[in-house]
């Protein structure tokens, strides 16, 4: 029996799962859409992973990361729950120990992580703006009648990308409509959008950060060839995109689950587990905290959102 470890990265748009063994080989992996229901998405994910996993492996650790990490951590009884910044850094360091800069653009957020000698020295995450993230790209792709998957290759066709005012998604959208209405070719507009994502990211998240090679680009948007091209062009450096770049967070948290293994054996079986959440508003004081109670097999496992600690 070989030991293996599961990492689950539940993002706003997609849910990623990766199972690795002791030598960092990926035994099984899956990438599905979250569709606003992380619990359901994780159930699906577990089913897919279970089909892929050979019988000779035994699961020895589970880690969760991403925006639903706490909830899913409770559901899977994970032995480690960590934020996505650390997970991405650890995952990337496993494969590229001398990386200096990690650019990450996901569905809802984008971050930059600077490293030196294998440790994080600085990081930043976008605060308010969605103009440099994947959800902006996918909504604009829909507007132009394109599939997100072909968006990047479409951008590569362009020789003369249009300039799009990408300071803010709302302005970018009206500018985009304007450019389309005055008759610019579609590929130029698509390329302009990809370039605007890059500029926005560098002006917003990457502001004041010294970006040094080797640079690794990951997150869902790294699969977009157009964005990669403009990153290369703007930064003037080689950009490494790993074939598993979309799974890096899941791999990172799996590596951490291995480091913190407890000796317990875990199961991928999810069918016999009932998992419910109940939301309520507390009216004891004028804070009106929104409480969320979490039940696992009808047993209260945790409740969140209380400011005073009564719950």
């Amino acid at each position, binding site marked *: 029996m070989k030991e293996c470890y599961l990492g689950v990265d539940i993002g706003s748009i997609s849910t990623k799962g990766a199972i690795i063994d002791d030598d960092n080989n990926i035994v099984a992996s899956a990438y599905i859409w979250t569709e606003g229901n992380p619990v359901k998405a994780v159930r699906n994910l577990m089913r897919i992973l279970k089909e892929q996993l050979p019988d000779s492996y035994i699961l020895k650790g589970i880690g969760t990361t991403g925006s639903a990490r706490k909830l899913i951590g409770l559901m899977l009884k994970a032995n480690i729950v960590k934020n996505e910044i650390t997970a991405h850094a650890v995952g990337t360091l496993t494969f590229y120990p001398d990386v200096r800069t990690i650019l990450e653009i996901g569905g809802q957020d984008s971050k930059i992580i600077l490293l030196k000698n294998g*440790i994080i020295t600085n*990081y930043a995450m976008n605060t308010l703006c969605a103009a440099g993230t994947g959800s902006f790209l996918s909504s604009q792709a829909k507007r132009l009648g394109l599939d997100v998957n072909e968006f990047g290759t479409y951008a590569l066709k362009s020789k003369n990308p249009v300039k799009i005012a990408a300071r803010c998604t709302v302005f970018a959208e009206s500018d985009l409509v304007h450019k389309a209405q005055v008759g610019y070719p579609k590929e130029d507009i698509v390329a302009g959008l990809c370039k605007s994502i890059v500029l926005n990211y560098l002006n917003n998240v990457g502001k004041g950060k010294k970006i040094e090679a080797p640079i690794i680009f990951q997150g869902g948007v790294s699969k977009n060839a157009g964005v990669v091209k403009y990153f290369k062009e703007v930064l003037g450096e080689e950009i490494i995109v790993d074939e598993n770049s979309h799974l890096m967070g899941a791999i990172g948290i799996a590596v951490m689950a291995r480091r913190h293994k407890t000796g317990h054996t875990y199961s991928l079986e999810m069918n016999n587990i009932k998992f419910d959440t109940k939301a309520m508003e507390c009216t004891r004081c004028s804070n009106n905290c929104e409480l969320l109670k979490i039940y696992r097999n009808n047993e209260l496992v945790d409740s969140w959102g209380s400011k005073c600690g009564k719950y």
Partner: protein
Amino acid sequence: MTKIAYPLMGDYHVPAKFLLSHILNAEIISPPPITNKTIELGTKYSPEFVCTPFKYTLGTMIESIEKGANALIQMGGGCRYGYYAEVQEQILKDLGYDVTLINLVTKGKTDFRRIVREFKKIDKHFSLLKALYYGFITVKMVKYMDTIDDYIRENIGFELEAGSFEALKFKMLRDFGKVDSYHELYKKYKYYLKEFAKVKIHKPDNCLKIGIIGELYTVMEPFSNYFLEKELAQNHIEIKRFTNAHYLLFEKTWAIKRYLKDMKPYIKYQMGADASDNIARTKYLCEAGYDGIIHIKSSFCTPEIGAMPIINKIAGQYEKPVIFFSFDANTSETGIKTRLEAFYDMLEMRRGK
């Protein structure tokens, strides 16, 4: 009869209430603790891009008026804070409330003669001598509270029994509010110093140490920084914080001259509010071996925005991580938590190597 109230900040409502109740023959209205309702009220009636402390204090004022107050105390400082009292008075008047605002600091200065005149309007028998005596006790009380708070901040992350520091502090504040003479206050202070030293802690020598700097109100009022210090303490981190009421009232005037001298390579003039102080503290924290620096401010705080690039530069020279947070009524708590979590993961990783 005049019913007087004051804005809230941290635990300083205890000395404020103590002072007012002893020197004025007026009813003291204790404002309700800051909750979501406070900030909602404040946001509703404030200009949108005003700094967040304005919204908090305005919210507290409205809540106190609803409780019956008809005289309010406000102060001013070296930034937009200098206009709080005037603007808030106008807003309250526009809302139809009939209240007097007593501004303790006008034009950046505390004019005692004017304040005495204001107090005499409220209470004909206002005695300056009595005010000076209780003023002295209040100042000492603030000093003692700040000294004990410093001790708590260093050790609360390592208490063996969760909540023991907080429970003791609650008792201490209650007792401080009840004292009647300086002698009594001093006795209580010594007693609680001993009590706090008795609280069992388990503190490793190599614990993580973080310095918190930033805009004064956000630093001092835990509700406005989403209980950042509590969050850090739960992760077993020693906290150093410089800004407290005693510093602002008495030490700052002298300290700032020294700071400006020390920080010559970076700044020439005072930058308003606590910006230059924070730049000097950044250097101190970097040199004193702290693991990281957290800079917090309310959104739209102009002096701190000016200080941020310089803080970044100093931290970069010393290779110390620094993280910036901006708080206002719409800040996402999860976002703050994720970044904080990543921050101490990073500090631990740096320690590990």
